[in-house]
């Protein structure tokens, strides 16, 4: 992180001020940000600490710190949930999430470029229709969609969860790409066109590299949202060996007793770790994606 701050591209404009004022302001900034982090992280911290509280303390002891810390809930969870190792659930979640990332990035970038830059017959109505698909609550299309996948014999496989992503059905990300494409300076791809590039090569060599922040945003969100998605995974996966983490997590709810909450919190925490790491690893690129310096032109 410090290496990042040292790179010249990231120097901020406030360079003209006297050093001392700058340092004081830096300290103030840290104080403000840390205070905010503490407030916002409190519930997360509570969740993590509860996973170390012994059964019985979880519902009765509402303070942040456990009275008698224990790691036994983690032992329980690693001992397997509902007859399967938690690595199996992890693996399933990972497969669904990664495939979804690939699908969404590819298909949404293509559609986003078409809607955002190319002119073609029917663009307006199609774009409006695309947006309208975000607006229909998914509970009512659930059953017709289920019938389709049932006819395709894909129920109880990962396909109903992954395949739609390859067809840009998540309008949110298409919209995201469109907004980014429209923010890119037009002269870039125009000069590419003048250089003799067709739309395909323009897309590949000019647009896609510039879309990097949007691509990374799409990747991060897709990963996290798919990882946390519950309803579609619930509907389409039947066989417990194909269960993902959110489904396995549900097994603790029905228990209804205090003894189930410890392992449930432990598993929630464990489920957080991969997306946490994923986010920490890639959020840097979100910002580093200042290949948008193409904007400076």
């Amino acid at each position, binding site marked *: 992180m410090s290496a990042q701050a040292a790179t010249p591209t990231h120097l901020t404009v406030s360079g003209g001020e006297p050093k001392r004022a700058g340092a004081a302001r830096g300290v103030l900034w840290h104080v403000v940000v840390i205070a905010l982090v503490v407030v916002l992280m409190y*519930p997360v911290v509570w969740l993590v600490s509860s996973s170390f509280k012994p059964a019985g303390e979880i519902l009765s002891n509402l303070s942040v710190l456990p009275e008698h810390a224990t790691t036994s809930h983690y032992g329980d969870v690693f001992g397997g949930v509902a007859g399967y190792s938690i690595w199996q659930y992890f693996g399933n979640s990972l497969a669904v999430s990664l495939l979804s990332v690939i699908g969404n990035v590819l298909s949404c970038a293509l559609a986003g470029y078409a809607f955002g830059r190319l002119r073609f017959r029917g663009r307006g109505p199609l774009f409006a229709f695309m947006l309208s698909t975000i607006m229909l609550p998914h509970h009512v299309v659930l059953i017709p969609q289920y019938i389709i996948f049932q006819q395709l014999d894909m129920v109880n496989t990962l396909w109903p969860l992954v395949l739609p992503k390859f067809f840009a059905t998540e309008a949110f990300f298409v919209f995201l790409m469109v907004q980014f494409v429209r923010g890119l300076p037009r002269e870039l791809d125009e000069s590419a066109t003048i250089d003799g590039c067709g739309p395909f090569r323009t897309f590949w060599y000019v647009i896609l590299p510039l879309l990097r922040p949007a691509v990374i945003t799409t990747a991060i969100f897709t990963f996290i949202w798919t990882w946390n998605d519950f309803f579609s995974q619930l509907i389409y996966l039947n066989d417990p060996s194909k269960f993902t983490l959110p489904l396995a997590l549900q097994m603790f709810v029905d228990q209804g007793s205090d003894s189930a909450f410890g392992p449930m919190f432990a598993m929630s925490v464990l489920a957080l770790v991969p997306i946490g790491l994923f986010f920490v690893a890639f959020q840097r690129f979100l910002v580093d994606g200042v290949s948008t310096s193409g904007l400076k032109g």
Partner: protein
Amino acid sequence: MPTIAQARPAGERAEKARPEVTKEPPPRRWKRTGAAYVFLSPWVIGASLLTIGPMLASLYLAFTDYDLFNSPKWVGLRNFERMFTQDDRFWNSVAVTLKFALISVPLKLAVALGVALLLNKERRGTGFYRSAFYAPSLLGASVSVALVWRSLFGSHGFVDHFLGFFGLHVGSMVDQPRYALLTVIALAVWQFGAPMVIFLAGLKQVPKDLYEAAALDGAGPVRRFFAVTLPMITPVVLFNLVLEVIQAFQSFTGAFVIGSGRGGPSDSTLLYTLYLYQRGFNNFEMGYASAMAWVLLLTISIITVLLFRSSRKWVFYTGEGNR
């Protein structure tokens, strides 16, 4: 070097752009259109296979009596009639949803933008902070969130103690009709990670030289924000606004998890989609639920169109404006 003056509103751009299109030689235009369809083909396949069919099916069901098991019976407009004239809970859910959207969306966007501005400058530890601010959103609406929220807003919870410190004794907020919706709103606002990240990405796209130019003109940080930052990120603001509004109207899981799916206490957290879900899967009235879904779809569409219309007045697209 582009300046603010050069960034023109989208409406003006559209008028200028149109004659240029017609000027293009026909073969090239055809080629472009063809290319566009190639780029669009995955989306077209997905939409026609997985989206249009189910959407039409639900539209048809909206005019039927459908209990999910036996074939739907055509009832014309009866579902809509019942909804608008006989269903108090429907209107209550509309009121709850509007209240939810009107409070949570501006609050969430303001927090997201505020934090994004704080984190925009590269300092030691920004990576860590960024992740920390995103952490609440990582949790999603998993089942444990319900317990976490109860520990926060329940009786003897953190907020109860905190307010008690100031002599306010509200008791359990999640369990009182007066406050329960606020806790659902708090959950929505707390998970501001997604718009924050999008704001951050947008802020990064603001050309640095604009700030330099503004600084040379003697603009302070506040003026720089309103004269440079805000106009330059308006496309991102629009994007976040539209999506958050849509999301707020469709908000489901937060209230579902916190209120154990009931929308209680006493229907105070009965968001529209929650009610729709209850009708569809609890009461087995999928026809009615579909009718509700289409009312929602039309409402959101109108709001979205209005937002886009208004955006011509306040959104600036640099890319297009630079031509």
